[in-house]
């Protein structure tokens, strides 16, 4: 195994991954009613192109791309459009979705399958990724085709596949790498081809030795990484993997790097090799709040409640339901929300597991300063924000914060640092808007 790398700062919350890491991915058939959100990606929501009563086919476009940073949305089933309405979304607000009554789940191969992607041009490949609606599956759901088309002048030389999965509890990427390594590797080659880079690799933390071994056995270049949160954040991953710092306020492509999640790579493979748009994803359902945690392959628009059912339902002590991981995920008051392309996990936490401390005053212990991977001083930003001193918060670098939650996690006083910092970011941006 190659040298184990890591980045400076960060923390090491208990992983709890063994709850679900041994559970093979189970494919869940589409439910009778799928609720397909039109804004599963970052950017402008797609515009609905179907209407009530329309009969549609699996893979058919139901929402059209609505701008540069936007993507089309496809139906995961054959069926009838029941309605188009605003529904609760995993990010706690509501958003437009197409409700479809499922009839069946076959077909879905809407594009021409390419046996050899190298027989096609890069532009064709990128176009295919766009038409297939592939967006990042690692968190931000950023349209992947945008990342593959750097503006002229930017020269990309490195592609890093993100198999880190540093959030505690989550095992979806891990299971994907174990059960479908060929799709991941092929997808990585396709992405590399699209970017025109020859230097590509996959970063995996050493708490997934089986995945590292398997990937290496398949001839893939693996960078083993020490276990540390938030190593999966792209700036930290790039720092750990190739030792380059993304400029503050800049993008990875500014230093010639593109990072893509392993799930994104698998989705690209499906789109290019099989001609199938992005319709399903792998989700971990876990936490002490469900009876039997597991990993599932579900179509977008499946309700969380359905996934919970598959996992044996809630245990008695459940108090908190989270979309995503415990560090950055969003807590929900209801489980009647649909899976999107970006849903990496559904976490049901018991009272013992979930945060249960009263907030105290900052004792200036400096743990947050030591831990912040971006070298901010979260305690000072938060104090400034609490006192509505937005200018001071900005001076302290509030806008750089990526909300990874490391600081709040380590704070012995239980301060809601990320919350305050986000408030400062909103206020600073609002002020800027006013000035502009």
């Amino acid at each position, binding site marked *: 195994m190659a040298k184990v790398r890591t980045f400076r700062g960060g923390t090491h919350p208990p992983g709890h991954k063994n709850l679900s890491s041994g559970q093979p991915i189970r494919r869940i058939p589409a439910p009778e009613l799928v609720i397909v959100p039109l804004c599963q990606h970052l950017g402008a929501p797609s515009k609905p192109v179907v209407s009530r009563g329309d009969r549609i086919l699996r893979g058919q476009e139901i929402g059209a791309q609505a701008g540069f940073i936007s993507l089309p949305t496809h139906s995961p089933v054959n069926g009838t459009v029941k309605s188009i309405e605003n529904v609760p979304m995993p990010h706690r607000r509501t958003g437009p979705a197409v409700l479809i009554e499922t009839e069946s789940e076959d077909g879905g191969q809407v594009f021409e399958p390419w046996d050899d992607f190298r027989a096609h041009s890069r532009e064709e490949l990128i176009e295919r990724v766009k038409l297939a609606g592939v967006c990042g599956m690692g968190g931000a759901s950023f349209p992947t085709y945008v990342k593959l088309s750097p503006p002229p002048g930017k020269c990309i030389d490195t592609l890093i596949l993100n198999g880190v999965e540093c959030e505690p509890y989550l095992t979806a990427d891990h299971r994907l790498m174990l059960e479908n390594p060929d799709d991941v590797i092929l997808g990585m080659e396709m992405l590399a081809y699209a970017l025109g880079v020859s230097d590509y690799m996959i970063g995996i933390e050493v708490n997934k030795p089986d995945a590292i071994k398997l990937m290496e056995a398949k001839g893939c270049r693996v960078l083993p990484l020490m276990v540390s949160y938030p190593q999966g954040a792209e700036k930290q991953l790039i720092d750990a993997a190739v030792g380059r710092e993304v400029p503050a306020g800049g993008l990875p492509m500014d230093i010639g790097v593109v990072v893509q999640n392993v799930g994104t790579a698998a989705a690209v493979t499906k789109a290019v090799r099989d001609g199938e748009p992005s319709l399903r994803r792998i989700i971990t359902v876990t936490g002490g709040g469900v009876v039997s945690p597991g990993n599932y392959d579900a179509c977008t628009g499946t309700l969380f409640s359905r996934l919970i059912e598959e996992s044996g339902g809630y245990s008695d002590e459940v108090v908190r339901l989270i979309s995503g991981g415990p560090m950055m995920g969003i807590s929900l008051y209801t489980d009647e929300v649909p899976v999107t392309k970006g849903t990496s996990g559904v976490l049901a936490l018991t009272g013992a597991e979930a945060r249960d401390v009263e907030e105290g005053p900052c004792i200036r212990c400096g743990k947050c300063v030591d831990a912040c991977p971006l070298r901010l001083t979260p305690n000072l930003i938060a*104090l400034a924000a609490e006192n509505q*001193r937005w200018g001071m918060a900005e001076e302290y670098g509030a806008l750089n914060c990526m909300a990874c939650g490391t600081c709040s996690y380590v704070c012995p006083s239980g301060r809601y640092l990320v919350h305050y910092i986000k408030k400062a970011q909103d206020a600073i941006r609002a002020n800027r808007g006013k000035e502009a």
Partner: protein
Amino acid sequence: MTVTLLLQTLLAAPGTGNSGFDVGRMMAIIIAAIFVNNFVLSRFLGICPFLGVSKQLDSAIGMGSAVIFVMTLATLGSWTVYNLLLVPMGLAYLRTIAFILIIASLVQLVEMILQKFSPTLYQALGIFLPLITTNCAILGVAVLNIDEKYNLGYSLVNAIAAGIGFTLALVLMAGLRQKLELADVPPALKGKPVAFLVAGVMSIAFLGFAGLGS
């Protein structure tokens, strides 16, 4: 010849023909003026600017530099006038009037000169200069130098060191106040009361320098 005579006169202790400048004593004066008998924290001179201009670090530094500058000039002017003019003419009782007029016109002069020849410096120090005329630290250092019977050399050293001590207290205060702005100070103590408490705490800490250099 005349120059040496003049220098000798200037460096002499008032009232005698001796000149003297002992490095050890100079060090003692410096340490005393900055730390042990800090103007603000132990002698209570210059409290108003200390409270008024310590809200922001930048202005504290500006005010501090202006005070050092004017203190030095005022000492030069007042010492010379007192020992070479007032005392020989038997007008020592006009000391207070003379000093305050010297300081006021010096500040005016400095302001004009700065404005003309160094607009950047004027920008930095200018707003503080008028405040300084009625700052008792300046008049205080001039009077103290006479009371302590320092010769011109010691007087200048004392003035510069006193100014540095003032600046030190001011800058520390500014830092602390900026920290306290984000603190959960009880509402009744917000503002001036807590500023005095900070000064008191600083003053206690400075007691640690007691006896230094003696």
